């Protein structure tokens, strides 16, 4: 491109500010943290369980998972490359809280409060502006859940996973592992053994949850893994919209994040789950960053139930996740809307799994992959229509956008149809940000960086419009920042 030095002067202040921030969440907060010794063995698992004063059945479940995990080897089929992970060099438990129990939000550690303020998340219940209930999880532990009382009035339970184990053991015991069994895969099994906290959410029959529920994940301590577990149960005829955000400090060493999310939707229930994932991606040379190995699955078990996943994945050094839906109930619906970006040296192998079991089940997969810099982007998706899934339908659309010449994009769709009435449609496209499009924008006076951001945001619009409003704005800004320096 001609005269790059002069073009930067035309970038809007906002874009420049965002661009200069690089990874703006890369700070570390100095909080007193209680950590377990490095390494993984039955003792550590017993320690985690004891710290959390867990019932015997849960400890047993963890140990079963651990023993099973010992027989497994890490998966190698994914299209990403990284050195071996030393699972004995990870800290499996880090508790950022001061020893004393907190009874109200005002008692939250001021340092912690400050950290969430920096992240733009208010833990103060008095600030009802956002109208979003937040469960904040730092390292391994849930530190605050807001709006609990208001939610309790309509019977919605929204609390940390540990709390749910104590307060609602029957629900946890009934549903834990019902969607993602502890034997599911290497990382889910590891999570089952060592998960430390997460969010729990229960929407009773017929209740439309009055506000967006949100979990904010933050890895703060060094060398720790984060293994949270989220469980959402939507009873008959209920509705909930759930948001998840993630950030981490900039560190030279890779950190492991292996989460499990299980969703259960009963008859006529709807769950909408949105993620904006912005874990630290590592630096321009690929040093540091989060390994994001996550298992997310929904069970649309009831008739006419519906589960939607919407994700915007811009962070992490490596992303490995396939949010899916098991469409068990007749007429149930599963949706997956995804924007995934790999820039710098990021790698992602992500997509969705839709398993059709019930009659007239319907699924939609819209995936937008963007590769820039030396990014490696792979879409991998499975549409599985079982014999019982009479009249099932799927529509899949995978679009890839390449920016620059050092990045790559792959698409691996797997389709298995075992009955005659199933209908599967698959559309895929790969395009480069055209010189022609860029020139057109620039000829109209739009500076190059802004033009790229505009074209990319346009490419993702179908997915962004599925996000709740404030998340959509954040997602657009995130893309702009993550693309900084990808052109020219």
């Amino acid at each position, binding site marked *: 491109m001609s005269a790059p030095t002069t073009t930067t002067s*035309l970038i809007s202040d906002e874009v420049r500010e965002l661009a200069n921030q690089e990874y703006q969440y890369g700070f570390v907060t100095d909080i007193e943290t209680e950590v377990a010794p490095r390494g993984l063995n039955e003792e550590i698992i017993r320690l985690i369980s004891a710290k959390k004063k867990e019932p015997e059945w849960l400890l047993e479940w963890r140990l079963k998972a651990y023993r099973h995990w010992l027989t497994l080897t890490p998966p190698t089929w994914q299209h990403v490359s990284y050195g071996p992970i030393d699972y004995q060099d990870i800290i499996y438990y880090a508790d950022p809280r001061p020893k004393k129990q907190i009874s109200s939000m005002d008692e939250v550690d001021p340092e912690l409060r400050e950290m969430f303020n920096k992240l733009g998340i208010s833990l103060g219940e008095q600030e009802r502006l956002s109208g979003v209930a937040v469960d904040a999880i730092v390292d391994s532990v849930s530190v605050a859940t807001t709006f609990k009382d208001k939610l309790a009035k309509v019977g919605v339970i929204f609390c940390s996973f540990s709390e749910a184990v104590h307060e609602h053991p029957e629900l946890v015991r009934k549903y834990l592992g019902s969607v993602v069994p502890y034997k599911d895969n290497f990382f889910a099994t590891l999570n089952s053994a060592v998960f430390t906290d997460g969010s729990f959410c229960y929407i009773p029959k017929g209740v439309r949850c009055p506000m967006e529920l949100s979990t904010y994940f933050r890895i703060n301590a060094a060398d720790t893994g984060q293994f949270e577990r989220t469980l959402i149960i939507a009873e008959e005829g209920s509705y909930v919209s759930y948001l998840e955000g993630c950030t981490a400090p900039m560190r030279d060493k890779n950190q492991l994040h292996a989460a499990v999310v299980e969703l259960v939707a009963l008859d006529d229930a709807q769950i909408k789950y949105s993620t904006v994932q912005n874990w630290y991606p590592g630096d321009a040379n690929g040093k540091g960053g989060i390994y994001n190995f996550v298992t997310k699955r929904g069970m649309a078990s009831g008739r006419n139930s519906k589960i939607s996943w919407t994700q915007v994945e811009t962070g992490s050094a490596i992303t490995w996740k396939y949010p899916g839906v098991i469409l068990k109930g007749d007429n149930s619906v599963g949706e997956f809307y995804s924007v995934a970006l790999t820039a710098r040296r990021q790698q992602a192998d992500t997509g969705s799994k839709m398993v059709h079991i019930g009659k007239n089940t319907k699924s939609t997969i819209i995936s937008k992959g963007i590769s820039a810099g030396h990014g490696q982007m792979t879409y991998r998706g499975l549409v599985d229509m079982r014999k019982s899934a009479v009249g099932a339908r799927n529509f899949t659309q995978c679009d890839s956008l390449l920016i620059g010449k050092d990045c790559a994009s792959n698409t691996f769709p797997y389709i298995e149809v075992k009955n005659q009435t199933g209908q599967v449609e698959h559309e895929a496209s790969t395009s480069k940000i055209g010189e022609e499009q860029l020139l*057109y924008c*620039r000829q109209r006076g739009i500076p190059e960086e802004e033009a790229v951001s505009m074209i990319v945001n346009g490419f993702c619009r179908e997915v962004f419009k599925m996000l709740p409003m404030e998340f959509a704005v954040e997602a657009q800004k995130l893309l702009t920042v993550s693309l900084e320096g990808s052109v020219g």
Partner: protein
Amino acid sequence: MLKIKELRASIDNKEILRGVNLELKAGEVHAIMGPNGSGKSTLASVLIGRDGYELSGSVEYEGQDLLALSPEERAAAGVFLAFQHPVEIPGVGNAYFMRTALNSLRRHRGQEELDAVDFLSLAQERMKLVEMDPTFMNRSVNEGFSGGEKKRNEIWQMAILEPKFAILDETDSGLDIDALRIVASGVNALRSEGRAMLVITHHQRLLDFIVPDYVHVMAAGQIVRSGDKNLALELEETGYAGLTPSLAQVGVAL
């Protein structure tokens, strides 16, 4: 306003412009005609700063060295091209696109940005010039537009950005007579004392509607003849083949 001197441009070692000389003053409309491959569109590309050409010669625009500016700086300086093949930008709304463009230009010129409401009324008013339906504002830029709609959209954009120097590259191609009339009347409405236009076309037909002050004939990368509007009529009768002697004069083999 614009002085082109001995402009040469080559791409992949193939010379396409072979010494173009041309001068435009504010308020004038110049037409460039010529056969396919004569270098008309390349001239437009070079003037807006498309990458990939090796250039020599000079282009002075309002006292500045135009060739030293980036495409967006040229736009900010008032250069506009109505593209021959406007590109589609999926997912980017037409109105949003134009507001971003206009505000980029305004920012560059130290003017205040227009808010959504002010922009909308401007956009609607200018749509009338080319008889466009307001629904076009919410559609993605050029996506699914017919050939005629794309060309009208280009003129709409020009009407909003109010350039000082506008190049119209084959704006008539692919238009039926009604669309041609609409586009031409839009262009005519934008003729003004402070604005120069360079109308590139294949056919004399367009010049019945947009009557130029000067007509130039381009062949094999050079301007081989210049005259007033009558030259276009003459060409219609003799065809470009009649130019061969002139070509021989400048020593270029067809």
